[in-house]
C-alpha cells in the first residue's frame, strides 16, 4: 500500500501542478465572470489540500523512498526530471499549506479585488511554479521553474500597478530576480562542469574541487539569498512583498522565501556534498547581520505590510544562522549537533510560514476594512475587529518567540545548537559562534519590541482616523484561514516533539544524522541532545500558565472587590486630548532609534521649534538613511546610468563608423586570441 503510494506520490504532486496550471488558463477564460473568484480560489484550495495530503502522507509514512518522474519536455537529450524526496516533501508541505490558507483567505478577500482578472490567472500559476521548483531534479527544469515562479509573482506584484510605488517595486523586483537567476545559472553551470550533465543525480555524484564549491556557495548566496532577502540583497523585498494583494504578500513572504531557502539547502547541503567549515563562517556572518538589520528596519517602519516584510528578512536571517551552524557541525563530522541545527532551521521555516502568513492576512484584513496600511492612522481596532485582533495577537506572540507558541521552540532549539558549538575545533568558529548567539538573542528581543509596536499602534489605543473608527470585522473565510493558522502556531508550540520527529527523515537524508526520537520521551517533552543537557515541554508550560492564571483569577474573584467603574483615561490635567496625541509608531520606536539608529541608519532628529509668541507649529523631522541602498545600489545605478549615457552615442553613428568599429573589435579579439595561446 505504502509502496503504491510512494510510486504515485510524485505523479500526484505533478498532477496537482498540472491542475493549478489548468486553473490559470481557466481563470483567463473566466476572467470577467462574477463567479471567477469563488471558482478559482475554491479549486486552488482543493488542489493545494490534495498536494498537502500527498506530501504529508509521504513524509510521515516513514519507509518511503525518493521517487522520480521524467517528462519528455525540456532539453531533448535530458528531458525534465522531477523527484520527490524527504527534503522536497517537507518544502511541499510548507508551500501547499501556505497555498491552501491563502486560497481560503482569498475566497473572502478576493471579492474586494477591483481587478480580479489581474490576480486570478497568476495566483494558481505562482503556486504551480513554487511546487515545480521544489520538485525539479535537473538544473534546466529548476531554472525554468524558478523563472516561472519569479515572473508569476512579478505579475502579482504589478496587479495594482497604478498605485504609487508599485511600478518601482515591480521594476526593482524584476532587476533583482534577473540578477538572482543569473547567479543561479552560473552556479549550476559550475556544478555541471565540463561534462555538462544537468541532472541533479549526476551533479550529486560528481566530485567538486574546493574552489568550485566555494564559488558555488557564493553564487547560491547571491541567487537564493537575493530571493530570500539576505542583507544586502534584500532591498527589493520590502517594496515588492507589500505591493501585492495581501494573500499574495503572505505567499511571497511566508512561502516563496522558503522556496529560496530550499534551493540553498538543495545545492549547498545536498548537491555539493561534504561542506568545508569556511563556508559556514560566511553563512553565519550574513545570517546574523540579516537577522539584526531586518528587525531594526522593521522597528523603524510605519507601514504595516512593509514592517512584516522587513520582519521576514529577520526570520530569513535566523534560518540562515541555523543553517550556518548546521554547516559548521557537518563540516566537522558532528552529526548530532548538525541534525539539531538543521532541524531547528526547518522548524523555523515551518513556523515562519504559519505566523507570517497569519500576520499578512491580518494586515490584509485591516487594509480591507480601513483602507489603511499606515499604522499611524490606525488604532483602537481591537474593539471593532475583535476576532482579527485576537488572531493577530496570537501571531505577534508567536513571532516574538514567546512560550508556549511555536516561534519559541525553534529559537530554543537554535540556542541549544549554539551551546553545542564549543566542540567545534576551528578557532574562527569558536570566536564567531558566541557573537552569532548574541546577535540571535538581540534579534529575538528586538522582534518582541517590534511586534509590541505593530500590535499596540494598530489595534490598541484610540482610533487615529475616521477610517479606523468605522472599521468592521472581516468575512468568515478570511477569519477561518487566520484561525486555522493561529491554531497551528499553538499546536506546533505545545507539541514540538511530533514535529521534530516528522522532520528527522529530512535531516537523515541530507546530513546522515538524526536527533533522538522525541516520541520516546515521556510527557511530550522534547530532549534534543540528552536529558541532562536541556529539555522543554511546551504543553506543560501552557498548562502551568493556564492553571496559575486561573488560580489567580479564582482568588481575585472570590475575595476581591467586584466593583468596576468606567471613566475617562487620566489625561494629566488635559481632558480629552486628541487621539493624535497618543504614542505613534515613530514615537514608540524613538528610544530604540536613539540606541541603534544613530549607527545603523545615521538617524537624525531635526527639531524646528518656533520662537515664543510665534504661532507656527513646531515640527520634528526624523531623518533615516538606508545605508545599503545609498551605499551600494545608488552608486551602482548611477554608474549604469552614466555608462548608458556615454554609450548612447553609439546609436547615432554613420554606417562607415559602425563598420570601422566592427573591424577594430575583430582585430582586437584576434590579437587577444593570438597572445593568449
Amino acid at each position, binding site marked *: 500500500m505504502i509502496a503504491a503510494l510512494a510510486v504515485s506520490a510524485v505523479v500526484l504532486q505533478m498532477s496537482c501542478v498540472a491542475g493549478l496550471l489548468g486553473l490559470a488558463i481557466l481563470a483567463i477564460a473566466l476572467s470577467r465572470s462574477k463567479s471567477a473568484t469563488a471558482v478559482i480560489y475554491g479549486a486552488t484550495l482543493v488542489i493545494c489540500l490534495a498536494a498537502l495530503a500527498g506530501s504529508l502522507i509521504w513524509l510521515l509514512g516513514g519507509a518511503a523512498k525518493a521517487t522520480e518522474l521524467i517528462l519528455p519536455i525540456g532539453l531533448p537529450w535530458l528531458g525534465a526530471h522531477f523527484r520527490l524526496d524527504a527534503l522536497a516533501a517537507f518544502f511541499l508541505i510548507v508551500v501547499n499549506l501556505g497555498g491552501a490558507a491563502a486560497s481560503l483567505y482569498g475566497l473572502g478577500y478576493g471579492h474586494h479585488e477591483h481587478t480580479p482578472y489581474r490576480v486570478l490567472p497568476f495566483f494558481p500559476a505562482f503556486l504551480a511554479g513554487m511546487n515545480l521548483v521544489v520538485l525539479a531534479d535537473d538544473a534546466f527544469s529548476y531554472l525554468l521553474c524558478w523563472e516561472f515562479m519569479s515572473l508569476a509573482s512579478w505579475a502579482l506584484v504589478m496587479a495594482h500597478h497604478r498605485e504609487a510605488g508599485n511600478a518601482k517595486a515591480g521594476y526593482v523586483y524584476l532587476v533583482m530576480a534577473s540578477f538572482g537567476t543569473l547567479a543561479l545559472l552560473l552556479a549550476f553551470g559550475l556544478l555541471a562542469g565540463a561534462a555538462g550533465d544537468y541532472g541533479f543525480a549526476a551533479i550529486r555524484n560528481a566530485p567538486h574541487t574546493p574552489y568550485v564549491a566555494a564559488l558555488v556557495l557564493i553564487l547560491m548566496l547571491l541567487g537564493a539569498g537575493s530571493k530570500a532577502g539576505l542583507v544586502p540583497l534584500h532591498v527589493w523585498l520590502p517594496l515588492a512583498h507589500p505591493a501585492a494583494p495581501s494573500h499574495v504578500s503572505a505567499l511571497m513572504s511566508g512561502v516563496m522565501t522558503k522556496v529560496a531557502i530550499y534551493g540553498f539547502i538543495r545545492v549547498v547541503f545536498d548537491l555539493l556534498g561534504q561542506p568545508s567549515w569556511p563556508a559556514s563562517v560566511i553563512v553565519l556572518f550574513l545570517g546574523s547581520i540579516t537577522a539584526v538589520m531586518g528587525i531594526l528596519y522593521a522597528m523603524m517602519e510605519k507601514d504595516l505590510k512593509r514592517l512584516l516584510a522587513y520582519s521576514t528578512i529577520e526570520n530569513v536571517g535566523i534560518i540562515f544562522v541555523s543553517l550556518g551552524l548546521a554547516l559548521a557541525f557537518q563540516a566537522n563530522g558532528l552529526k548530532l549537533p548538525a541534525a539539531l541545527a538543521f532541524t531547528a532551521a526547518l522548524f523555523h521555516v515551518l513556523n515562519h510560514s504559519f505566523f507570517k502568513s497569519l500576520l499578512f492576512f491580518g494586515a490584509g484584513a485591516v487594509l480591507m476594512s480601513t483602507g489603511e496600511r499606515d499604522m499611524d492612522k490606525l488604532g483602537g481596532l481591537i474593539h471593532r475587529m475583535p476576532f482579527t485582533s485576537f488572531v493577530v495577537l496570537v501571531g505577534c506572540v508567536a513571532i516574538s518567540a514567546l512560550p508556549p507558541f511555536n516561534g519559541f521552540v525553534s529559537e*530554543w532549539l537554535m540556542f541549544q545548537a549554539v551551546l553545542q558549538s*564549543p566542540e567545534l575545533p576551528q578557532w574562527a568558529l*569558536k570566536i564567531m559562534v*558566541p557573537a552569532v548567539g548574541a546577535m540571535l538573542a538581540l534579534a529575538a*528581543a528586538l522582534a518582541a519590541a517590534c511586534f509590541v509596536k505593530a500590535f499596540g499602534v494598530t489595534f490598541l489605543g484610540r482610533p487615529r482616523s475616521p477610517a479606523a473608527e468605522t472599521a468592521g470585522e472581516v468575512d468568515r473565510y478570511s477569519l477561518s484561514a487566520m484561525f486555522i493558522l493561529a491554531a497551528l502556531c499553538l499546536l506546533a508550540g505545545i507539541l514540538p516533539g511530533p514535529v521534530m520527529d516528522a522532520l528527522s527523515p529530512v535531516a537523515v537524508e541530507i546530513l546522515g544524522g538524526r536527533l533522538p526520537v522525541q516520541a520516546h520521551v515521556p510527557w511530550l517533552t522534547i530532549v534534543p541532545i540528552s536529558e541532562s*543537557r536541556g529539555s522543554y515541554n511546551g504543553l506543560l508550560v501552557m498548562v502551568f500558565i493556564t492553571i496559575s492564571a486561573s488560580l489567580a483569577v479564582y482568588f481575585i474573584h472570590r475575595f476581591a472587590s467586584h*466593583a*468596576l467603574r468606567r471613566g475617562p483615561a487620566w489625561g494629566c490635567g488635559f481632558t480629552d486630548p486628541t487621539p493624535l496625541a497618543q504614542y505613534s509608531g515613530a514615537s514608540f520606536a524613538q528610544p*530604540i532609534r536613539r540606541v541603534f539608529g544613530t549607527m545603523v541608519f545615521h538617524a537624525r532628529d531635526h527639531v524646528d521649534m518656533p520662537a515664543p509668541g510665534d504661532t507656527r507649529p513646531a515640527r520634528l523631522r526624523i531623518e533615516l538613511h538606508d545605508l545599503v541602498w545609498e551605499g551600494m545600489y545608488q552608486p551602482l545605478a548611477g554608474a549604469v546610468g552614466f555608462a548608458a549615457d556615454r554609450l548612447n552615442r553609439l546609436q547615432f553613428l554613420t554606417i562607415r563608423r559602425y563598420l570601422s568599429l566592427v573591424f577594430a573589435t575583430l582585430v582586437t579579439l584576434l590579437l587577444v586570441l593570438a597572445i593568449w595561446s
Partner: protein
Amino acid sequence: MVVISDILVQGIQMLLVLLLAPLLTGFVRKIKARMVRRQGPSVLQPYRDLLRLLRKEVVLADNASWLFRVTPYVTFAAIWVAAALVPTFATGLLFNWTADLIAIVALLGSARFFLALAGMDVGTSFGGIGSSREVMIAALAEPAMLLIFFCMALVAGSTQLSTVANFMGSSGVGLRVSLGMAVIALIMVALAENARIPVDNPATHLELTMVHEAMVLEYSGRHLAMIEFGAFLKLLLYISLIACVFFPWKIALFGTGPLAYAVGAGVYIVKLAVAGFLLALFETATAKMRVFRVPQFLGAALMLGLLGTLLLFVSRSL
C-alpha cells in the same frame, strides 16, 4: 504516592515564593528608609497595600479593551511559573525539567510583552512612553541575560537550572573568570529588569524619569494588585536565581526529606535578607541615571555576558 509528595513539595515552593515576595519588597523599603534616617513603613506594608488594592473598585478607562483586563493575570501567571522553575530551597522539583533557563527568559519576556501592550491600550501618552522605554530596556537586557545563561549552561553543561544549581553546589567548580563576569552582568540585568535604581525608580511618579510605573499608570484596584504582586515576585525570582546559581549553599538535593528542605528554606530566607539588604544599600548609595544612559549600562552587561561566553568557548576551564 511519590508523585503526590512531589506535587506537594512543588506546591509548597510556589506558595513560599508567593508569601515571601511582598515581605522581601517591604524589607528592602524598610532598610532604605532606615538608611536615610527615616522610620519607614512596616515591613508588612506591601501585604496591606495588596489587600487595600483588592478591596478597592477598579476604575477602567472608557476605551480599555479585554486585553487590558486580562494582562494582569497573564503577567502574574507567567512570572509565577517562571518563579516556580527556579530552585529556592531544593533542586530537582517537579517543574524543573519542564523548562530551562532559556524558557525563564522567555516567560519573563511574555509577561513584559503583555504589560507593554496593556500600556498602549488606553491610548494615553503615559502608557506609550512607559511601554516604549520598557521595550528599549528589554531589547538590551534580554540578550544580556541569555548570554549570561549561556555562560552558566556552558560551565554546567546543561541549561536545566536544577542541574546548574547542583553543579555549582558541587566542589568541582572553583573560581572562574567567566562566572565572575556572569554574576556582575546578572546583577546589572536584575536591577534593570526590576525597575530599580539606577535604571528606574520604583518609588517615584515623575513623568520624565519613570518607565515601569508609567506603563501601569492606568491600572487600579485588583488589577493593580496583581501587577504589583507580579513585580514583587519578579524581584524575588531574580534574587533566587542569583542565589541558587552563585551561592548554592545548603540547597537541599531532590528527595532528601523534610529536614533538609527545612534547612534549605531557612538558609534561603537568610539569603533573601542579605540580598535585600545589599540591594537597599546599593540603591541608597547610587543616583538614578538618565534614560538614555541605560543602554550604556546594559551594553556593559551584554558585553560582560558575551566576554564570559567567549572565554568558555575558548577554554572550558576559564
